[in-house]
């Protein structure tokens, strides 16, 4: 089920541009989705008190920490994620080279 994206470099230029535009759109859509999900997450985790309209100081601080924490987790996981994929693609390239050499 793991299909490496080595075919991207083989795409003709207009397809590459189309892919670039699609990627940009995906990024915009993704950051909006992330915004929404982060709001929902931090609300659910931090806001309990429905006795007033305004957030309490404690709730505000909690939301701030919640966001910051999630951002840090995202960054770290993203870093490892990149590493895993790079490793996988290197292994695939090595296997392909070995298969070629064996002929």
């Amino acid at each position: 089920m793991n299909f490496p994206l080595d075919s991207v470099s083989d795409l003709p230029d207009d397809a590459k541009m189309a892919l670039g535009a699609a990627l940009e759109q995906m990024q915009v859509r993704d950051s909006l989705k992330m915004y929404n999900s982060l709001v929902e997450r931090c609300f659910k985790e931090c806001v309990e008190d429905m006795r007033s309209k305004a957030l309490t100081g404690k709730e505000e601080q909690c939301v701030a920490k919640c966001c910051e924490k999630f951002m840090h987790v995202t960054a770290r996981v993203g870093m490892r994620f990149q590493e895993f994929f790079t490793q996988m693609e290197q292994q695939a390239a090595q296997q392909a080279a070995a298969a070629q050499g064996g002929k």
Partner: protein
Amino acid sequence: MPGEQPSEAEQNAVAAAALTMATTELEYRVSLLNSMVATCHDRCAARPYKEGALSVGENSCIDRCAAKYWQVVAIVGQLLGAQNK
């Protein structure tokens, strides 16, 4: 007939299919990343939130969580792939 170049229409069709495939794979990767982040955050971020920065313990937990998640991706991929044959 062997030796003939594929027609422009055929080339376009192949390029379009490759583009769709590349887009689909990108979407899959993004979705995978988001799942990994959400899952490891739920497992590893200490509640109640003391601060915004990650502690050493949380960092280690995240590294291990991500590594294990990746292994699960590989196993499930293999099993599904074998099933499809």
